[in-house]
């Protein structure tokens, strides 16, 4: 059985709206980041891979298994949806046990796995706590535990860090990296920082299409020579925002240091080239593919 996910020419429609447009991707073992705006089609793609959505066209194989074999795919896939919870009156341990039964695990295996996973996600002390009493971060950790319960070969996590405080977010990202050592982990997010901290292989989605696929370093390389900084007086800011893509502004007394993206050297006095970060590179990628990245600038 090969250890990769292959997505070929996949289309998906919601009525007349095309949610996935000729999607082609190859995802290998380790962390894979799917980056895109809200509404780009990331969740649709994640749900399609988790067999919760039906594609209209194209071919998907997960570790060599066609996506149409839903039962087999479900047995090797763990899924953590964006918006989820569990029965509020069940305890943490009971919830995992219930989901383990739904995964067809026997009693002894469930017992062992639940113990191991609760330890791994730091929830052992809270195993008798009811789900309704858990904090947002704890719920996310319980979410990852349930997704890993049946030792899946593929883990699909959709916007897992939304709503978490910085400390919980870091802890959660580290946890994902650890589990990615043994399996394919697909992380879908609109938060560039999550990708930067965890993934090397990424894809960028927009309007249901894969705009770009490669490594983080390749994405950064594409943006070299396209990012500039300039110290500008406040009065020039509207003009700069109108003419360039602004990725950062740092107010410093009389001047504001503005970070801009431009295909050519900007026609601004004092503009100097800067090393691109992942946010710059992501914005440049959207811009270079003709996406509207004005962000509502006048």
């Amino acid at each position, binding site marked *: 059985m090969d250890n990769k996910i292959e997505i070929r020419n996949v289309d998906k429609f919601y009525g007349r709206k095309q949610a996935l447009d000729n999607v082609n991707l190859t995802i290998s073992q380790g962390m894979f980041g799917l980056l895109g705006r809200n509404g780009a089609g990331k969740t649709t793609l994640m749900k399609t891979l988790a067999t919760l959505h039906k594609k209209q066209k194209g071919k998907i194989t997960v570790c060599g298994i066609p996506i149409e074999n839903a039962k087999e795919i479900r047995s090797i896939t763990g899924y953590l949806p964006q918006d989820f919870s569990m*029965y509020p009156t069940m305890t943490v341990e009971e919830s995992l046990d219930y989901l383990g039964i*739904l995964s*067809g695990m026997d009693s002894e295996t469930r017992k062992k796995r639940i113990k191991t996973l609760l330890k791994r996600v730091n929830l052992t002390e809270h195993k008798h706590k009811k789900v309704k009493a858990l904090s947002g971060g704890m719920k996310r950790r319980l979410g990852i535990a349930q997704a890993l319960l049946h030792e899946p070969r593929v883990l699909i996590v959709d916007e897992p860090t939304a709503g978490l405080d910085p400390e919980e977010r870091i802890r959660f990202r580290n946890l994902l990296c650890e589990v990615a050592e043994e399996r394919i982990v697909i992380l879908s997010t609109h938060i560039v920082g999550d990708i930067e901290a965890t993934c090397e292989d990424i894809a960028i989605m927009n309007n249901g299409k894969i705009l770009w696929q490669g490594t983080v370093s390749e994405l950064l390389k594409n943006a070299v020579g396209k990012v500039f900084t300039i110290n500008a007086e406040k009065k020039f800011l509207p003009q700069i925002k109108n003419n360039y893509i602004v990725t950062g502004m740092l107010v410093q007394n009389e001047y504001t240091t503005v970070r801009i993206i431009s295909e050519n050297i900007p026609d601004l006095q004092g503009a100097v080239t800067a090393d691109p970060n992942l946010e710059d590179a992501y914005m440049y990628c959207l811009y270079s593919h003709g996406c509207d990245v004005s962000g509502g600038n006048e």
Partner: protein
Amino acid sequence: MLFLKECKKVLFSLTFLIYIITVFAMYYTQFQGDCDTPLEKPLPNQSDYGMTAKEIPEILMPSAIESLVNRYLSNSYPAYPMGFYKDVHLNEKKKNKMAEIITEISGITKQELDNFTYSEEGTMTVGANGMMQYNEPEIPSVNIPKTLTYKRFRELMDKADKIIGGGSEYNDNNIVENFSLVPKTYEDALEEYNKFFDDDKITGAYARLYCDYMGIVLAILPVFVAVSFTSLDKKSRMEQLAYSRKISSAKLVFTRYASLVLMMIIPVIITAFIAHITVKSLYPENTTDNFAIIKNALIWLVPNIMFSTAVGMIITELISGIIAIFIQGTLWFGSIFAGTGSLTGSINKFTLVPRHNSLYGADVFKAEHSDFVFNRIFFTVLSLTMILITAFIYEQKRGGKFNGLDISFKNIKSKSET
């Protein structure tokens, strides 16, 4: 294991607690009241053996007319519009319509009715046999027009029943047994009494009565438990976690259905057991059928639970829980209303709630037995078919091939605006 987990989920739900309370309340308020005293054996030369119904117009017409005049003057009409007792009071408009009927059948004008001084209290007098007897309150004298045919009389009685709202004493199904009663002979009474012991073994008769009362609630209550249980995944935002597991849709849906049905049977078995103990203590010297009530409860009542649960599950998956309750409520109402007032011998092949509200009438029940068996098998098979379809719907929803029908008011409105 999954079955036990699902049973536990049912057990700790609020709707199930309400279900248990209602089942026990129904048992104690309705059935228990009929278990206060044992049936008395008829003796020769008794002055009275009770009455039996025979359709004799000469008896029926004056008796029903006098009753209707009485009810009109007191403006109080007992009725069972949905199988439950209701004291109906008519408004002025309906009173006028009723007065027209009374005038046509009794010759008493509306003016006479309105001017009559009516005392609601009847009188007690010493009868010919030396016993005290109750006399109905005095009413204006009734003169049945010679031109009034029996057919026309029955039409007017049916009209009167509709004015009252159905299920009254004048309903087509009840009128004979209410107003055309003839005295039973000693032999009639003894035969009926012996059948109660020999054929029904006492508990058989009580089993029918028990099932009659419990069947009413068990045809509607399970839908609430099923809707609440089926909506739980969605309500708990657990749907996608369950959808993405390996378990087959058929196994999950059937296990959930089985756990719901089993949990809802348990209070029925407990009340049936209490009923058996109660009846047994009423007749300590007699031989009883120890399994009659439990056996009847399972055969008679389980299809009600199965059907109501299946409707709750399939419609919740297909549309929504509210619509499921509405649909089952309509079926329940229709079934009970269809058997208006005819509380015995109201079993046909497709009625959801078979009725037999009497300790007697084993013959009537026997005569309808094949229909009854067909009826129960029909609802069992129909329920299982619905659950099979529910599993199919669940599988379609799970794979994103179907998202349920949206027939909410908001959706209909927005579509019409488009």
